[in-house]
């Protein structure tokens, strides 16, 4: 982790920092109908910081999952600070993206989705999104995106210069009773960390409404699957 000064944008230190900025972006602007993905890092630099830790300056582009990597790209710049503390504390991000406010085309879909599931007897539950073959049903797509946004809170908080998180799969989603006009969803998400190649399981409780966006209320790390271990004789 020695690189200081200008960083090669295609190399992993720049990409990891940009991924952290991306998680931050999704926590603030993600929704059941909007998830951002990293398209490209244009410029990156890093420097040590007086208080300890390292600060990255990034210039990168993102696209919306809905339009894919070929869709219109949003240009962003970010400062990402990985603090140096004895106990891990999450990175601090300052982010500016152009034209973010102009993206409002999902408002209608969001309201329709909200209306459909806010009713008291709605009790959505599902497992394995996507399934083993990569399928996600039409109905589950917004829940998949919502899980990805909620998982971004955890991925952001858990990130360091030695991690690179993605959400590999949603193990389960179970709708809880709505509270304060928020959709309440309990997710179990499987995160993949690139350097360690580990699949890390987190249970989380998230709320969402078109007005308040996504909030994560509780998170709980889940231990590994028992069949990964040989049973005692």
């Amino acid at each position, binding site marked *: 982790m020695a690189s200081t000064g200008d960083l090669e944008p295609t190399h992993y230190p720049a990409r990891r920092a940009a991924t952290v900025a991306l998680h931050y972006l999704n926590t603030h602007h993600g929704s059941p109908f909007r998830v951002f*993905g990293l398209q490209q890092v244009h410029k990156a630099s890093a420097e040590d910081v007086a208080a300890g830790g390292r600060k990255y300056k990034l210039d990168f582009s993102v696209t919306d999952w809905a339009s894919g990597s070929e869709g219109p790209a949003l240009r962003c710049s970010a400062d990402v600070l990985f603090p140096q503390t004895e106990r891990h504390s999450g990175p601090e991000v300052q982010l500016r993206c152009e034209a973010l406010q102009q993206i409002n085309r999902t408002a209608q879909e969001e309201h329709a989705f909200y209306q459909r599931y806010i009713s008291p007897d709605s009790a959505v539950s599902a497992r*394995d999104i996507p*399934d083993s073959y990569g399928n*996600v049903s039409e109905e589950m797509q917004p829940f998949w995106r919502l899980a990805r946004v909620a998982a971004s809170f955890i991925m952001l908080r858990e990130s360091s210069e030695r991690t690179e998180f993605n959400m*590999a799969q949603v193990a389960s989603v179970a709708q809880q009773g709505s509270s304060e006009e928020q959709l309440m969803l309990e997710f179990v998400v499987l995160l993949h960390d690139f350097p*360690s190649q580990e699949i890390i399981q987190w249970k989380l409780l998230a709320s969402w409404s078109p007005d308040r966006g996504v909030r994560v209320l509780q998170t709980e790390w889940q231990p590994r699957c028992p069949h990964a*271990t040989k049973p005692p004789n």
Partner: protein
Amino acid sequence: MKGSVISVLVVLVVLDRLASGLEHRSYDYTKYHPMDEISAWMNQMERENPDVVSSMVYGQTYEKRNITLLKIGFKNTTPKKAVWMDCGIHAREWIAPAFCQYFVKEILGSYKTDSNVNTLFKNLDFYITPVLNIDGYIYSWRDNTTRLWRKSRTAGTENCRCFGTDLNRNFPAYWGMVGISRNCCSDVYNGPTAVSEPETKAVTDFLGAHQNEMLCYLTIHSYSQMILIPYGVPNISAPNYDELMEVGLAAAKAISAVHGKSYKVGTPPDVLYATSGSSRDFARFIGIPYSFGLELRDKEKYHFILPENQIQPSCEEAYQGAMSIINYIHDKNFKSAAVSQTVDNCDCLMDLECKCDDFKPLY
């Protein structure tokens, strides 16, 4: 009596051809297949193409399954130069075995009509292992909770009860130096020792025995859309690093021309993360000049669980990438040789610019 016997035989032969034709047409290369279907498909490829395909069992998995490759090319009495391709070192990377099957289908379907593939079949043998980590692959098909398994299925011990070794950290190339864990529960556990796993040994034995013929080592993985060149250990460069980068970048360009997907090219310490004991590094380490790890789709959305509707486009682009590499290596090894054999009384420069009156180029 004789006539009716003959006509019955003719009917049976026709029916048999029809059946195998139907069988062939019905194998769906746009779906993921469990191991028993892949094994049956391998038998079918050998049966239907006896002139150019033979299978070889070259080792056993931990759970005692045969590890089999398809040797593909025009048969020759003396050993030919060769290209190795393995898929599925990591169980959860389902798109990789799908690509090996697609690659085999493509070259078998085109070698008679495509002069480029025909020439490759003449001068090279392809050694293709559609699934290397068979135990792990089968395990990843067991149920919804096992889909994301990565390692082999070596049993745990008294000291450490978790299953499996990361085969791609188990090769004897800077083994144990970096990017590994000594905790056997880790997904990058590199095994108690180098080549501790029978799957690893099968590959090291085979490559060792065929070292002189092997021109190219290709290992197929997912995800992240990258072309990785040796070495995974920082500050250790392959002697032909510049050339490997050049070939890799050309392959990435060929890939991007198909569906617009961008693939990064570089060593793992640059573009991914530092590793040691990978098969790609081992191949280069023992002197196979061209060694590449291909990381297929996708980058950011589906990761390991790539939807089946992306199998076809992923394979199409990866095929162009692989062929770009293979053709470069082939041309470097065969074109100049061919030219120097057929050209007389000419001044030929290193890059094949021949100044002769009666020079008839082969290609």
